[in-house]
């Protein structure tokens, strides 16, 4: 890339895009560039950064909404929220650890990649919290969709479509999203020594109880020391998070612990330890290892995750742990990326998808980062892309 465009206003960004469209100049869209290694490599001549489209536009804690320019650093958003004891309930991950990048992740990048963490199982994904957007399409037109109210079915939901489109349909310039109060109390129940299949059953059981589990992960034996240290019993750690009012968390923790004590030695982590543990799970700490070993993010039905890993273990060197009740599998391949085998096995256990989050440049060049879609859905996606970016200038190749 010879040079980055860094517009300072939506109008300027629109001009740049209109020019680029007129001359068919492909653009690589970046926020903080902390996840630029995600997805396929972009074939673009020029970069278009939101770095200078920055700043919180409005924050109304009582209405629990915030609007910000897309390039606003996450640090700034999180600080403003923390000042009012509020948070982004979907717990976006910080990719810098696993990807070995530096720089400042942006709120636009988070929504463009629909980045969602452990609370996904109850609070929803980034897309469930995004209320409204402004974006510039590939013809350089500024478009708005959604708004700032909690319920809105006025017209087609382009908000959801743009969320997770990885900068291939439009340049987000403003995002308006829902925020939630920080839970005043939190605790984690840890059960030790369950194997992956037992853990899957235990997590399913916990989520069927009326205790409102807000995080359910299984930290396999090989990684658990990176999360909960050595002062606890041996073996894998199955962790369940509870959040809410102090008295209520205490009561629910007792119930859950009692249910678990029947199958495994169990303990309870306090609020502080809980916050650290789930941040580490969110950021995939054991695989923030400074290596280029292929790292996959696999999303399947919760009870299928462990079946997939068991099948892979028979064939190849793989390390794994589970979030989302077992439905989100973080897989680190010891050598080859094994994309063909992985995707075949995913079909075999009832479907889902795998995204290559990290790998060496050579492996990335040879491996489609996203799960290929069935032909009719892929055709639909191509038609949609044409309707938003007729000249194909946004992040060419990223999702294709």
């Amino acid at each position, binding site marked *: 890339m010879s040079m980055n465009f860094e517009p300072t206003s939506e109008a300027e960004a629109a001009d740049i895009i209109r020019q680029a469209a007129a001359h068919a100049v492909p653009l690589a869209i970046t926020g903080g560039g902390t996840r630029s290694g995600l997805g396929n490599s972009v074939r673009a001549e020029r970069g278009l950064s939101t770095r200078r489209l920055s700043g919180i536009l409005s924050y109304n804690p009582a209405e629990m909404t915030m609007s910000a320019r897309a390039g606003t650093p996450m640090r700034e958003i999180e600080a403003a929220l923390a000042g009012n004891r509020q948070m982004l309930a979907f717990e976006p991950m910080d990719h810098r650890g696993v990807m070995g990048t530096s720089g400042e992740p942006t709120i636009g990048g988070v929504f463009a990649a629909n980045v969602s963490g452990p609370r996904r199982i109850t609070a929803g994904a980034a897309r469930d919290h995004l209320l409204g957007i402004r974006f510039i399409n590939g013809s350089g037109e500024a478009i708005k969709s959604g708004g700032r109210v909690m319920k809105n079915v006025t017209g087609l939901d382009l908000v*959801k479509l743009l969320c997770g489109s990885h900068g291939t349909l439009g340049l987000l310039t403003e995002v308006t999203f829902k925020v939630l109060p920080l839970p005043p109390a939190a605790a984690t129940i840890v059960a030790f020594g369950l194997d992956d299949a037992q853990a899957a059953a235990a997590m399913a059981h916990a989520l069927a109880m009326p205790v409102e589990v807000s995080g359910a992960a299984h930290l396999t034996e090989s990684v658990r020391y990176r999360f909960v240290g050595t002062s606890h019993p041996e073996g894998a750690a199955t962790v369940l998070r509870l959040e809410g009012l102090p008295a209520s968390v205490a009561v629910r923790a007792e119930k859950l612990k009692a249910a678990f004590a029947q199958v495994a030695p169990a303990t309870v982590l306090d609020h502080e330890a809980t916050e650290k543990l789930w941040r580490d799970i969110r950021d995939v700490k054991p695989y923030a290892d400074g290596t280029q070993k292929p790292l996959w993010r696999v999303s399947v039905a919760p009870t299928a995750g462990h079946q997939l890993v068991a099948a892979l273990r028979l064939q190849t060197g793989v390390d794994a742990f589970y979030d989302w009740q077992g439905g989100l599998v973080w897989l680190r391949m010891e050598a080859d990326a094994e994309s063909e085998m992985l995707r075949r096995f995913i079909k075999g256990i009832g479907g889902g998808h795998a995204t290559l989050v990290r790998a060496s440049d050579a492996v990335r060049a040879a491996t489609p980062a996203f799960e290929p879609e069935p032909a009719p859905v892929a055709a639909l996606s191509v038609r949609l892309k044409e309707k938003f970016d007729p000249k194909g200038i946004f992040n060419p190749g990223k999702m294709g």
Partner: protein
Amino acid sequence: MPETIAFLEPKPSVLARRQQIVEDLADILPPGCLISEKRGLVPFETDAFIAYRQVPLAVALPETTAQVAAVLKYCSRYGIPVVPRGAGTSLSGGAIPQSDAVVIGLSKMSRILDVDFANRTATVQAGVTNINISEAVSADGFFYAPDPSSQLACTIGGNIGMNSGGAHCLKYGVTTNNLLGVKMVLFDGTVIELGGKALDAPGYDLLGLVCGSEGQLGIVTEATVRLLAKPEGSRPVLFGFMSSEEAGSCVAEVIGSGIIPVAIEFMDKPAIGICEAFAQAGYPMDVEALLIVEVEGSEAEMEAMLASIIAIARRHGVATIRESQSAAQAALIWKGRKSAFGATGRIADYICMDGTVPLGQLSYVLKKTSEIIDSYGLRVANVFHAGDGNMHPLILYNINDPEDAARAEAAGNDILKLCVDAGGCLTGEHGVGIEKRDLMLHQFEQVDLNQQMAARAAFDPQWIMNPSKVFPLEGRPAA
């Protein structure tokens, strides 16, 4: 004179081939799955937006996805408009046919296909009613969260069409937040599957786009939805206020304080009277406004949350607080609320507005609404989902008096514009349909609508799917 809502001009080429189309459809569908006699078609001429009616060309009632695909393939080949239909409870005219259209009704596809408690999902055919899902899983301790008041009748396909909400969506989200996957048929008969039992899907969020698309992107034939564990207990509590403004500001402060109950429903005096007469739920009759606040969890949790809410309500001058004394009374309280529209319909004709506003604007919009209603010499009952700012003024009028009807429609338009101007939107859960179609330019610029219509055209390049709805008839792309 009343400005009436127009439908697209019927296609003469389609009307002229009516007999042929009916014969062809009869060949495509099994016996008993096609209605073409006038008498049989009349029940399909409107939905719950009863002021408008159009008898369709024919009604197809397929039993399988393959039959839906065959009908769509046929209709797209000849450019015949198609209107998908669930139970026809749309309040915005989303399911009203047009005279050159084939209605595809999903009522025969009403089976629950799979219930998976370990993954907490249910996969159902699109014609299953909303309540059926919760009933099917209740004994095992689960429920399906979005609960439109019409849940006894409305279908999951219609819920997806409108991205429907309900009283308990304050905590659990609306349809789009609880939908994991669909099987659907595109305009040309292509069958696709989006999502599944995993929490997210690869590629663009097509599921998010389809949810709330009002039957314009295709016909959903199966859906996989998220089930939740039922709470240990739940309790509705009634808070009566001497003014709507006090009730409105109480709602804003409860939410602003970080407490999120499962539901906060609002009724004004006329609505209280109507619902109490219907349900005898023990609503206080001497107050101007009533909030139904539901909390859930263990006994201790409910107590703690209620204590905080009561403290806030006191600061806003609450006049009456009544906790439900038994499960039976709790059920009556909800029966009264959920029957509000039906009960209103017994005393007058009504149109139901659905604008959503930021919570800080609730009191202001309530006050302005009553001014608008007064200025037209009409009556209104307000009963709505206050916790998320989703207002439902029911404008009462006489459907047989054209002038009254025109006044009601005009007042409704003014109220919806007020909601948009207050920072909100035209519709929170009922959809645009035909009702709000011509107001879309009050909320959007033409360029915004053009982008939506372009996305629509990626799914249905011929514009045969429910084509009279959502987008103003002017400003559409040339066919």
